[in-house]
């Protein structure tokens, strides 16, 4: 093939000259490799554009949704609350689609204007405080606890899966059905069981909430101690429940990778087992795991409502549930937006991580 702009290696042949020594010239010569930077700018740039588009689409859908609800419900909402400031009322109208006196396009612009100002409306349920304030109080708890638990679960599961896969056929194989079984137990039952055993009977841990009654968040050793104490059971139950998935995934990937030729070559080279396991096998097997992990981060924000119910943990999930029950539309809309944004950010992180880990993705095309 005659490449017009070659960037890939080609088998090029040269017509024989006098005393042509193929060995010298080499028909396996490649065209000069362009500077290979570590950062695949082109690849990331393309992805960034895609995500911007997705973000725009998500926000627009968020705009359209309330306008599809029956107008009465929303008017009634406003009617119930006479003591809203005019600015707040305005904001709510823009967010919830009540400003029907304006054209749709004007509404859309208004909506964006409010968003970019950080105005997500006021929350009925929480004494008319701004939605942004309400969400930002709960968000750290969710991200902190669930994020921590997910990361720990991922690390233990992946390392465990690598070892189980490496020693296929040994007694370690039993770990897979055990952890998988644990993940099929309904979470609320697991949570309640944990509370019953460790909190009520053994009195090792508190029953619920993020910190002791009467305390308020501050940066003191005592407060942090309380957070850890209260967070232990919720985190532990999440870890136990999700371990199985990571372990199974990693183990299966390991089995596939261990059949590859380069593993045999590594062993033929006399590499010690540990090096083959971690440097050759696990390093390749972990790639799909990383993608799953990044995706699961996206769902941290919205996905742990059961845990928050069981442990009365002041996170975003509970916030959303309460808002739904109280028909606090502004708060609901705000939480949806936050969840969408987190999933997008997580996807971006996944792409970046993958591009770094797998050198093959750095070349676009062919």
């Amino acid at each position, binding site marked *: *093939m*005659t*490449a*017009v*702009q*070659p*960037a*890939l290696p*080609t*088998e090029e*042949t040269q*017509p*024989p000259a006098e005393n042509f020594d193929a060995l010298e010239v080499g028909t396996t010569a490649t065209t000069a490799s362009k500077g290979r930077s570590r950062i695949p700018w*082109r690849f990331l740039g393309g992805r960034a554009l895609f995500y911007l588009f997705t973000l725009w689409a998500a926000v627009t859908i968020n705009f359209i949704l309330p306008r599809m609800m029956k107008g009465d419900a929303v008017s009634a909402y406003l009617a119930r609350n006479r003591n809203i400031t005019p600015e707040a009322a305005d904001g709510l109208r823009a967010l919830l689609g009540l400003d029907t006196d304006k054209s749709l396009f004007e509404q859309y612009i208004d909506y964006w204007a409010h968003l970019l100002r950080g105005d997500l409306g006021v929350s009925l349920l929480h004494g008319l405080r701004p939605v942004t304030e309400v969400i930002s109080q709960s968000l750290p708890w969710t991200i902190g606890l669930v994020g921590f638990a997910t990361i720990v679960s991922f690390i233990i599961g992946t390392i465990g899966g690598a070892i189980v896969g490496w020693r296929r056929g040994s007694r370690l194989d039993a770990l897979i059905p055990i952890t998988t079984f644990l993940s099929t137990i309904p979470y609320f039952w697991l949570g309640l069981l944990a509370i019953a055993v460790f909190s009520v009977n053994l009195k090792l841990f508190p029953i619920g909430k993020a910190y002791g009654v009467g305390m308020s968040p501050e940066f003191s050793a005592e407060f942090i101690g309380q957070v850890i104490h209260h967070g232990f059971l919720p985190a532990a139950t999440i870890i136990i429940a999700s371990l199985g998935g990571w372990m199974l995934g990693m183990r299966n990937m390991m089995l596939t990778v261990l059949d590859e030729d380069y593993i045999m070559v590594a062993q033929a080279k006399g590499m010690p087992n540990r090096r083959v396991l971690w440097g050759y096998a696990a390093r390749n097997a972990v790639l799909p795991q990383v993608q799953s992990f990044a995706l699961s981060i996206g769902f941290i924000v919205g996905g742990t409502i059961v845990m928050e119910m069981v442990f009365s943990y002041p996170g975003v999930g509970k916030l959303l549930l309460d808002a739904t029950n109280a028909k606090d539309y502004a708060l609901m809309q705000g939480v949806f937006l936050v969840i969408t944004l987190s999933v997008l950010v997580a996807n971006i992180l996944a792409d970046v991580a993958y591009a770094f880990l797998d050198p093959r993705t750095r*070349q*676009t*095309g*062919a």
Partner: protein
Amino acid sequence: MSLLEFDAVTKVYSVRGAGQIKALDDVSFTLESGQTIGLVGQSGSGKSTTAKILTQLETPTSGEVRLDGRAIPRHGSGLRAYRQQLRMVFQDPFASLNPYHSVRHHIERPLRLDNVVPQEQINGEVRRLLGRVRLDPASIADRRPHELSGGQRQRVAIARALASRPKFLVADEPVSMLDVSIRLGVLNLLADLQREEGLGVLYITHDLATARHFSSEIIVLNQGRIAERGTADDVILRPKHPYTQELRAASPDPEKFFASTSGIGGGAR
């Protein structure tokens, strides 16, 4: 007498990140029924692209393929009719047969789709075709591909290709994945069938030796262009183009090798 014309075909691919790649550059040849042409090329020469264009899996960027003077329709019943006339035998006997279906099913399908024979004669036709490729219908017809050897699978692929009674056959490296001792058997079969049915065969390969024995004419492709063409013996024994000369020098030739080093013993030193 049928005529297949490959007329000034150029195929350009756009590859993300690598610009444009010319897989074929102004390639022309004609294939008559009853004739075998060997298309010889190494990887990247364009020989696979030629096969894809002939079977209409790809369309040329410029140039035309004509069968009996008529250009090939892009879609519809005209394309179907063309495909009936030109069949392909693929390189990988493992991949070209569907592992879930019996041999009988594979051969029946083209018979049904192209209405080659009336319904009630299909079974007989399957038996006949299997016999043509020297397989025993009774023991083979109801087996699945994984129960057959590579050579048997390739024969089934040939039988399937012949089912629609085509005028032309494109054989893309038909024996390179088979065991050495059965390769000649399959090639001989193809040669016999070609002679008996008056087929026009395009034999695509990288192997000069089999190309020489199997084809009457050889075309050498290099990077999308024709480097040389002529009768098989002319091209192989008296190559004019430097590329062909290189190919020939690089191919193992024990006959010549031992003739020149008699008394010293073999081995490239």
